[in-house]
């Protein structure tokens, strides 16, 4: 998203459309009652989650309002009491090291050293899961989790939204841990 938005600015292009992020739409659709999510599935289970604020979406594009939308969605889906913040967060969040082309740059050792700060931040929350609503963040944090031997699951937001609506199919669970592998099936 940032590459297009910044590109429009840089190359002085005025498009005939608007740019939108699905994260903002998730929040709007839940508020409007069109997306009937619930955290009931997690009441007994008590699985805890933290969330990565993607730099491109938050600090570099919409700022704290979209970080609030993100939290609203996450809390609606997993339950407010099961959400744990990392600090610092929102616009002041640390980059995970998945951006800037790092994943393809060949500097793997440096990328993991960079990500160490993020890894520690996540581990310190004590959360069972990390939600990464950005592809580069997802790849990077998943790699940090596996490579460090911490093995905490890293999930996309759409997985949890469908899980919370009881409509997550059997083949759509590759990133869930064993604890949630059969919830709602």
């Amino acid at each position, binding site marked *: *998203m940032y*590459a*297009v938005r*910044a*590109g*429009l600015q*840089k*190359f002085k*292009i005025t*498009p*005939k*459309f*608007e740019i*939108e*992020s*699905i994260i903002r*739409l*998730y929040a709007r*659709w839940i508020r409007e009652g*069109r*997306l009937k999510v619930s955290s009931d599935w997690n009441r007994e289970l008590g699985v805890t989650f933290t969330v990565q604020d*993607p*730099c491109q*979406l938050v*600090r*570099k594009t919409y700022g704290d309002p979209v970080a609030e939308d993100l939290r609203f969605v996450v809390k609606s889906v997993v339950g407010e009491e099961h959400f744990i913040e990392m600090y*610092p967060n929102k616009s*002041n*969040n*640390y*980059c995970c*090291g*998945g*951006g*800037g*082309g*790092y994943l*393809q*740059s*060949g*500097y793997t050792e*440096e*990328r993991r050293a*960079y990500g160490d*700060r*993020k890894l520690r931040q996540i581990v310190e929350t004590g959360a069972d899961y990390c939600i990464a609503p*950005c*592809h580069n963040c997802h790849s990077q944090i998943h790699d940090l989790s596996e490579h460090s031997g911490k093995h905490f699951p890293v999930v*996309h937001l*759409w*997985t949890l*939204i*469908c899980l919370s*609506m009881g*409509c*997550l*199919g*059997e*083949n759509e669970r*590759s990133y869930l841990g064993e604890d949630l592998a059969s919830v709602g099936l």
Partner: protein
Amino acid sequence: MGEAATVILPKQSVFLSKVMDMLPEGGHLSMCLTCGLCASGCPASGLHDMDPRKFLRLCALGQDEMVLSSPWVWMCTMCQRCVYACPMAIDIPRLIYEARAAWPREDRPKGILGSCDQALKNESNSAMGARSEDFVFVAGDILEEVKEAQPAWEDMQVSFNRPGAEYFLNQNSREPVTEPDEMVPLWKILHTVGCDWTYGTIGWAAENYCMFLADDAAWETIVRNKVKAVEDLGCRYWLNTE
């Protein structure tokens, strides 16, 4: 123990002046107070003995050779946390971008270069080289599977190039190429809310490594291709999955 002092001869930086000329208010690049808030909050600090403050100081002292040869520019993600933390809002990431751009194209990291070139070669703009016909096939295949295995979703639709759809949805090519089932939860959400959306066969791949490669011309080509794709279908929103 501090580090041993490095003796350098201050010079005028051609590089720094060039970047300052490009930016509104010179990107505030001459306003550094050397406070170190940038470096202390930067996860790339210390890699290859570099950090954002040091990088800017080296520029300010005209050490262009050192600045333009440091591989550290590929270890900063241009995440802009330094700008956010900086009391003078100094645009260090832009300096990094221009330092990347100063590298001969063929010397830039092969993986980033290859991903950008793949995107340029293909109307999909996929950095993984995914072809649009494969995307259409995979999406159709997965949709059929879902309808068969989960009858509740029998009415779910996935369209391509549907003119006048409200949302033009892009998709990271990682999904159709390596984990197509990950698209299904997203489709289910869109179907549940009755969203009027379409995929396109032009410029649908969400990733853009040409920006990371700091190749302005390639970046512009890709942005223009994507803009045209959305405009040709007359969609009101270009919708990103993140």
